[in-house]
């Protein structure tokens, strides 16, 4: 049983398209996150949600819109994709919000914008 799962694993699309990435965790955690890892492996937080409420929005372009229908799911919708959006996107979860707890990561979604 996968603790944090993401779909799809790979996403190849044209510039200007809209796409979504889904994330689900079965750990019963209250907090979920989206991270972006660039080609240099630098990992940067984008958003975090605690019990479906937005906690962190890390100056991400408006084209990125997270949505948490319930605390086990956090989806990421991206409008008008740009070349610079190409990266690996990771979903993660933790029992409590913030920096004091272990985070559990999904396998990642590699997004390639052509």
């Amino acid at each position: 049983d996968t603790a944090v799962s993401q779909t799809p694993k790979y996403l190849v699309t044209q510039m200007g398209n809209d796409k979504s990435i889904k994330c689900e965790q079965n750990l019963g955690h209250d907090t979920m996150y989206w991270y972006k890892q660039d080609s240099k492996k630098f990992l940067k937080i984008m958003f975090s949600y605690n019990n479906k409420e937005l906690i962190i929005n890390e100056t991400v372009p408006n084209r990125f819109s997270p949505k948490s229908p319930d605390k086990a799911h956090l989806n990421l919708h991206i409008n008008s994709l740009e070349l610079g959006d190409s990266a690996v996107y990771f979903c993660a979860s933790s029992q409590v919000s913030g920096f004091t707890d272990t985070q559990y990561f999904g396998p990642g979604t590699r997004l390639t914008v052509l």
Partner: protein
Amino acid sequence: SQQGEEDPQALSIQEGENATMNCSYKTSINNLQWYRQNSGRGLVHLILIRSNEREKHSGRLRVTLDTSKKSSSLLITASRAADTASYFCATGIFGNEKLTFGTGTRLTIIP
């Protein structure tokens, strides 16, 4: 610039040797965590050390924290081929809700 920076950026050692990676950070922290990332995979938590702790062990892993020098080290003893991965430190800062990840050390274990 990043809160945490790992050193070295890349490290290659023979299987069985010990591997040491360092992490330096800029501001006072509440805790520091180490994560491993195998190629093409998500990050896996290894160990968390709090600001009032100096050393922590977990199996073949030993983590030290020197808050006066704002640095931490991760030692992997008796390395194995399966330890080949990138290793990241992440810092938790008072008053900030997020973990900030470092730049990572790519470790290669040569069989």
